[in-house]
């Protein structure tokens, strides 16, 4: 269980993808997500999939870890296919495309979070969301919210596991709605407590929404090379 929790969490490695500017990576995530939606025929799906596999290999992400981490999604994939088989058997191909898109979204996000430390993401989000200042939205608040969400996903799972185990040890039957409701309430309680502790800790370390991340960001040769690759991908597919 614990190993599964670190699925998609940052790992420090010496790879080109780790060196890329976090801003450019965020932009790529957006561009690639649009491309996923535009890919419909076998040719574009194959090229796109190969590109993502290349990214995963370049980032030195362990394939076994990905396959294990994806186990939780297998149920959704099977469910989707079953729905297509039952309700529209003639459109099974579309069903596979839908699953493929879902899988690609997961892999794109995984590559981003695996290769980018949270402080880098915060700095990038801050810089990219600067225009929102016009509407009175503070970029640091957005960046901090995202970073905390990523940081606390494993903590949430650990809490879930603790609640589940403590209930199982007292013979709770999870087929009963009452017990499922109880898990939700207990989880909410723990999460709110964690949020309260975290906000105290942030105030203690004088969190200031007006301060900008000091992490220097600058485009380097890797970023320009990667741009060429992504442009080539777009041209090949379309």
């Amino acid at each position, binding site marked *: 269980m614990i190993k599964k929790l670190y699925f998609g969490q940052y790992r420090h490695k010496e790879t080109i993808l780790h060196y890329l500017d976090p801003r450019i990576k965020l932009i790529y995530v957006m561009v690639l997500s649009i491309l996923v939606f535009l890919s419909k025929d076998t040719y574009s799906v194959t090229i796109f999939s190969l590109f993502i596999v290349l990214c995963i290999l370049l980032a030195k992400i362990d394939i076994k870890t990905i396959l294990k981490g994806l186990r939780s999604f297998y149920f959704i994939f099977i469910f989707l296919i079953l729905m297509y088989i039952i309700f529209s058997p003639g459109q099974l191909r579309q069903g596979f495309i839908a699953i493929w898109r879902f899988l690609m979204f997961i892999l794109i996000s995984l590559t981003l979070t695996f290769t980018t430390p949270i402080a880098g993401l915060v700095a990038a989000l801050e810089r990219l969301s600067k225009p929102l200042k016009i509407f009175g939205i503070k970029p640091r608040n957005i960046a901090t919210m995202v*970073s905390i969400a990523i*940081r606390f996903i494993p903590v949430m799972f650990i809490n879930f596991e603790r609640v589940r185990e403590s209930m199982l040890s007292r013979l709770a039957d999870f087929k009963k709605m009452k017990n499922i409701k109880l898990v939700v309430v207990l989880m909410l309680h723990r999460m709110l407590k964690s949020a309260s502790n975290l906000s105290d800790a942030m105030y*203690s*370390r004088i969190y200031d929404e007006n301060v900008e991340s000091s992490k220097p960001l600058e485009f380097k040769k890797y970023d320009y090379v990667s741009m060429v690759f992504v442009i080539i991908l777009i041209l090949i597919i379309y």
Partner: protein
Amino acid sequence: MISVKNVYFGYEEEFVLKDINVEIKEGTFTAIIGANGSGKTTLAKHFNGLIMPDKGSVLVDGMETKKDSMNARKKVGFVFQNFEDQLVYSVVEEDVGFGLENLGYGYDKLKCVVDEALEKMRISHLAKQNVNSLSQGQKQLVALAGILAMKPKYIVFDEPTTNLDEKNKKNILNIMKELNKKDKVTIVLITNVLGEMKYADNVVVLKKGAVIFNGKKSRLNKKIIKEAGLGD
């Protein structure tokens, strides 16, 4: 000096702290002890303005926390009981730099201070690690490094050994002693374990939100400890 003057604090209508008067002098090591629910953590959170008193005042080097909580927090670092929730960023060195970022440090200076803090805690080898992959003892040291990096004059440790094994407990107590004796940092230790106050000069004993003892550790006797609900 941290001065707590006639402080009352309550949730809803019940007072958790009643007429508290405590002084934490610079360079001292003070242990605040009491049974569970005696108000130790609530009192400690007053020291850096995380909680404001309903009545009375808390002054940090003459500044009232109600008027200037930000400056109080710069001077008083706080190591929380649940250090898991204290870590904001996922990479060790980034988390240690969080407070410095808020203080407006430039990147080079920040990096230098972070390295120094990690070195002091002897966890430089963990700098690039994901905090979720660390042991409880290591997480505690990262949380402490994050506070030390901000160079506070006072550090409050809220039951720092609760989730630690014997080896890590000993380590954290030695670090507190070293910070106090070598670096002249004023230490406030919140605990309900009597053995942990061995390095303390002064002791404050709380019972049901009131101070029942405040003085030199040598003056503390079994009767008071028993009254606080801590002895046999």
